[in-house]
């Protein structure tokens, strides 16, 4: 990869100051900044090619439709899906999982079936499944054994033998621990037990090479905004033969084949799942984001962010009273930590004054943090434009904060 300094000029938001310091944006697990290439693509689309899709017979609408469907083909290619028909555009990971849970809850999953999750799921891959309890669908959980995020995946077999599990839904990369779960190995194990799989790729898409063909999952969800694309666009990937079995999620325009006053029939996937005018501009932006990231190289992005995270974890470890969560090795670009006697909110308020933007809170991971006896952590998360020098500033500022509160 080119040195990260070279990418910074691609991202206009990174050149600003914060409280008199150069902004160090270290909240990339929440959302990433946008490169000019994405902003320009969206602007150019609205200036030259914008109309509604799939309905106009005039040239402008034909061009807009082509741009939108071209984005779908680009995503299919990015994920190594078998066809663009396996790509459903959603608002993001949350909507993708809600779509799947809601539709599968009325088709693939029967009363008495179980869904197996892990204790490290983001609320977006937990609460939508809880909603199915009223349909008699049961939830089971693979325990997280320690603060490093260890899960004994042998337990999948144990649980599947004892209970009627139909689907295993798990996060590829934990958004609070930075733990990387071996998705391909897990899906192969699940397949041999006859389980369907959903991979929550919110933290891995655009941060590492990601192939549904290699992972061998049935479904995968991700958000564009965590990988350089605009907000409001995301994807649910599903294997064609499974999507064919799922009923619609939302209904209305765009998704119907024929409507009568008392009944309607649906288009085939993916359009069956895209009711209403979609986020066309967002899809254009996602297309440009994929182009941008593939030019940089996703293996290089993964290597760079992992190396910064491991540098940050070892540097922070020297601060008295610090407790660092997550794996000791093979950590994604995420480091969560707590400082003894300093609440995470007070800590990030201090870091903000030093120009360091970090998230503090439960990271939509309440059950996991509760298990560790924590209500909140501070979290630094990196991307292709993050600098080693920013990590040095972070370590120094955390130490300064500790001294301030020690009094």
């Amino acid at each position, binding site marked *: 990869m080119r040195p990260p300094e070279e990418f910074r000029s691609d991202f206009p938001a990174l050149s600003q100051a914060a*409280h008199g310091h150069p902004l160090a944006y270290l909240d990339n697990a929440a959302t990433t900044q946008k490169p000019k290439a994405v902003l320009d693509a969206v602007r150019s689309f609205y200036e030259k090619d914008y109309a509604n899709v799939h309905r106009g017979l005039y040239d402008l609408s034909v061009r807009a439709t082509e741009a939108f469907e071209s984005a779908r083909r680009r995503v299919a290619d990015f994920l190594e899906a078998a066809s663009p028909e396996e790509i459903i555009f959603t608002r993001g990971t949350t909507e993708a999982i809600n779509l799947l849970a809601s539709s599968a809850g009325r088709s693939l999953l029967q009363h008495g079936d179980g869904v197996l999750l892990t204790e490290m799921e983001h609320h977006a891959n937990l609460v939508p499944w809880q909603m199915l309890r009223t349909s008699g669908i049961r939830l089971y959980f693979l325990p997280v054994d320690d603060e490093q995020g260890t899960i004994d995946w042998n337990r999948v077999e144990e649980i599947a033998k004892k209970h009627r599990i139909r689907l295993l839904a798990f996060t590829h990369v934990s958004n609070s621990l930075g733990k990387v779960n071996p998705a391909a190995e897990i899906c192969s194990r699940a397949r041999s037990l006859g389980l369907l799989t959903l991979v929550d790729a919110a933290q891995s898409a655009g941060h590492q090479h990601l192939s549904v063909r290699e992972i061998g999952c049935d479904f995968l969800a991700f958000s564009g905004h965590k990988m350089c694309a605009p907000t409001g666009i995301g994807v649910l990937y599903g294997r064609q033969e499974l999507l064919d079995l799922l009923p619609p999620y939302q209904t209305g325009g765009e998704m119907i084949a024929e409507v009568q006053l008392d009944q309607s029939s649906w288009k085939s996937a993916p359009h069956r799942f895209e009711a209403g005018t979609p986020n066309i501009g967002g899809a254009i932006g996602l297309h440009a984001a994929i182009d941008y990231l593939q030019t940089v190289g996703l293996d290089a992005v993964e290597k760079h962010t992992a190396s910064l995270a491991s540098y940050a974890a070892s540097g922070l470890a020297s601060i008295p009273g610090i407790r660092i969560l997550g794996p000791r090795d093979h950590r994604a670009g995420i480091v969560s930590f707590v400082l003894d006697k*300093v*609440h*995470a*909110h*007070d800590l990030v*308020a*201090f870091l903000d*004054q030093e120009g360091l933007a970090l998230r*503090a*809170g*439960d990271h939509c991971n*309440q059950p996991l*943090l509760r298990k560790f006896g924590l*209500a*909140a952590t501070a979290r630094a998360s990196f991307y292709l434009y993050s600098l080693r020098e920013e990590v040095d500033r972070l370590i120094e500022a955390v130490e300064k904060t500790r001294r*301030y*509160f020690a*009094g």
Partner: protein
Amino acid sequence: MELDELYRESILDHARHPRNFGALEACNRSAAAKNVSCGDAIQLFLRLSPAGRIEAVRFSGSGCAISTASASLLTLAVQGKTAEEAEALFAKIQRLLTGTSAPQDELPGDLAALAGVRRFPQRVGCAMLSWHALEDALRAGEKNSA
């Protein structure tokens, strides 16, 4: 540093050594408040006299320096006040921190240390947490006696 305005010396002191911390055994009013954005949770305990005066007040829970200090200051400020006086104080502090009152409308005594929060809108929720619990505890009482 700007933050010294937020973390004034007395705020840090109350955060490190919260007053009236821990459950109140003989209480007849209590309420919990939770800040969903950060997980801070505070429980407030009151003992109201039959005449409606706050005879004792304590709090427990965990939170950031601002929410802990604010709760600690609250216990000192409302001790001995009537429910009506305490409600008036709640309204006043809310007006001051959310910026709808005139700047000269200063908070009385030690509570003035909280005025720095005004410039940090993202921390107003922290400062108000225990005060919302106070209001709930007082109102729960009204319901019980009605």
